[in-house]
């Protein structure tokens, strides 16, 4: 069920945003995309999920080509994404937000009531079951983040593309996020993650891909990437050779 990106190119108005990206996202692993703003991370998500058409190149998932497919068709192939700005259905309840995600394969179905158990299970897991009747627009920022995550987890899709899911979360929320990603992976799921919180990236990732100016500048295990002196100095703010190579901050933010 691996996700393969082959020689992807995309430009906007002469600006080459994605410049020949070839990448294999390994099955049942968490792969993080990192890099400075404007590196092309979200554009890559948009290309993979069909929201933007590539100028050139191919995307395959589980051996099947996704080229030219509409986003809703790509979702049916098992790839589901979140958005940096969350895009919750604010005038719908928390419960409805998750039910919509569960019922997504039946685009027109009046009578079928999807199995509500997965919605309950996911909402309980992210701590929002007690707020299920509240409007999504009434939730706090952190709760909205978890609702966004619950929505994609409920779909049962094998591959999640998460766009900055941990941004702005505090300690306990970050721990919960970490647990959720770990559980999803242990259950056989694949995650492609865009995240600027480098502590989270280091903790949850099996592999890190460093994107810069639309190209893959480096790829490897967290240890390899974080110990790379050039990348560390330039983007992570890490002083290699310092006490446990500590992160000086979220320089890539």
């Amino acid at each position: 069920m691996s996700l393969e990106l082959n020689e992807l190119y995309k430009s906007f108005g002469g600006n080459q945003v994605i410049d020949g990206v070839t990448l294999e996202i390994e099955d049942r692993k968490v792969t993080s995309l990192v890099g400075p703003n404007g590196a092309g991370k979200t554009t890559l998500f948009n290309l993979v999920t069909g929201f933007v058409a590539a100028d050139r190149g191919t995307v395959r998932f589980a051996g099947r080509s996704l080229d030219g497919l509409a986003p809703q068709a790509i979702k049916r192939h098992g790839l589901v994404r979140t958005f940096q700005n969350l895009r919750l259905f604010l005038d719908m309840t928390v419960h409805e937000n998750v039910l919509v995600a569960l019922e997504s394969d039946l685009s027109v179905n009046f009578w079928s009531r999807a199995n509500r158990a997965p919605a309950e299970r996911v909402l309980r897991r992210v701590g929002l079951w007690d707020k299920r009747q509240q409007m999504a627009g009434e939730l706090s920022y952190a709760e909205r983040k978890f609702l966004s995550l619950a929505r994609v987890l409920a779909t049962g899709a094998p591959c999640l593309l998460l766009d900055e899911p941990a941004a702005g979360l505090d300690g306990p929320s970050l721990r919960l996020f970490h647990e959720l990603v770990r559980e999803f992976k242990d259950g056989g799921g694949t995650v492609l993650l865009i995240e600027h919180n480098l502590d989270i990236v280091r903790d949850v990732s099996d592999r890190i891909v460093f994107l810069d100016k639309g190209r893959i500048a480096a790829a490897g295990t967290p240890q390899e990437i974080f110990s790379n002196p050039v990348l560390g100095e330039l983007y992570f703010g890490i002083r290699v050779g310092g006490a446990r190579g500590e992160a000086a901050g979220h320089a890539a933010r």
Partner: protein
Amino acid sequence: MLAYLLNLAILLGIAVILAWSLNVLIGYAGIFSVMHAVFYGVGAYVAAQFALHVSADFALATLAAMAVTGALAFLVSVPVLRVREEYFVVAAIGFQMVASTVFITWESATGGMGGLTGIPPARLLGFELVSPAAYLALTLVCTLACVLVLLALVRSPFGRALKALRDDETAAIALGKHPVMLRLVATTIGGAMAAIGGSLYAFYVSFVNPESFTLDYSVLLMAMVIIGGAGSLLGPVLGALFITVFPALLNFLQVPSSVLGPVQQIVYGMMIVLLMLFMPEGLVSAGKLLARRSK
């Protein structure tokens, strides 16, 4: 006085059904349709023709009207829904103008400007519904049937998908929703439901002509939904109540007939502007606002 009130109640029932049918589009699917009077009109003409040439059975005539109008709404929506937002409004106005012309010129089907006359009283289960009270009962049954269908609809996966599309189309698509398919079904349902109002109207007044199904009436229907509050079941009822009862109130206050029309237009326009400024969710949100203030 009783006859007047019965008449008002029947017209209100028809307006509520029409506002609900438009609310499926505006409130749940996020489609700002300015052509709803067309579906109301087609429903009325089909029911009238059915009554004149086939049977005056209300149920059969209404089913025929719903089938034809639903099919027309579907066919019209295929090209029209390809354009978005403001372009859709323009396309809808264009369709309304074409349809108004067809209502006037297709004399064999619509009777032209003279309309269709002599529509027999509705029959239901072997009874002829002649008295206004009986017709009001029929209108109430139709209204009840519509609200039950709408309740089932908005609580179904389809209803949730529509609302999701209205709230955030990009997110809905990312979750697998098919926007064109969903909107096509919504416009078909809205069109078919408008035909119920058309059928009720045709049998009630026993006469239909193009003047009842103009662009002005499409705008008035839109005003009902917006003034009352789109996206809820109560909102269109409040809007229909306001739009139907307000002229009656002006009559009651003996406003001269020469200024009645302009006064109505000015008040509707002002209402919409004021509501957009202070209560963008419509009259239905007044309760919420009061509750918030009392806290």
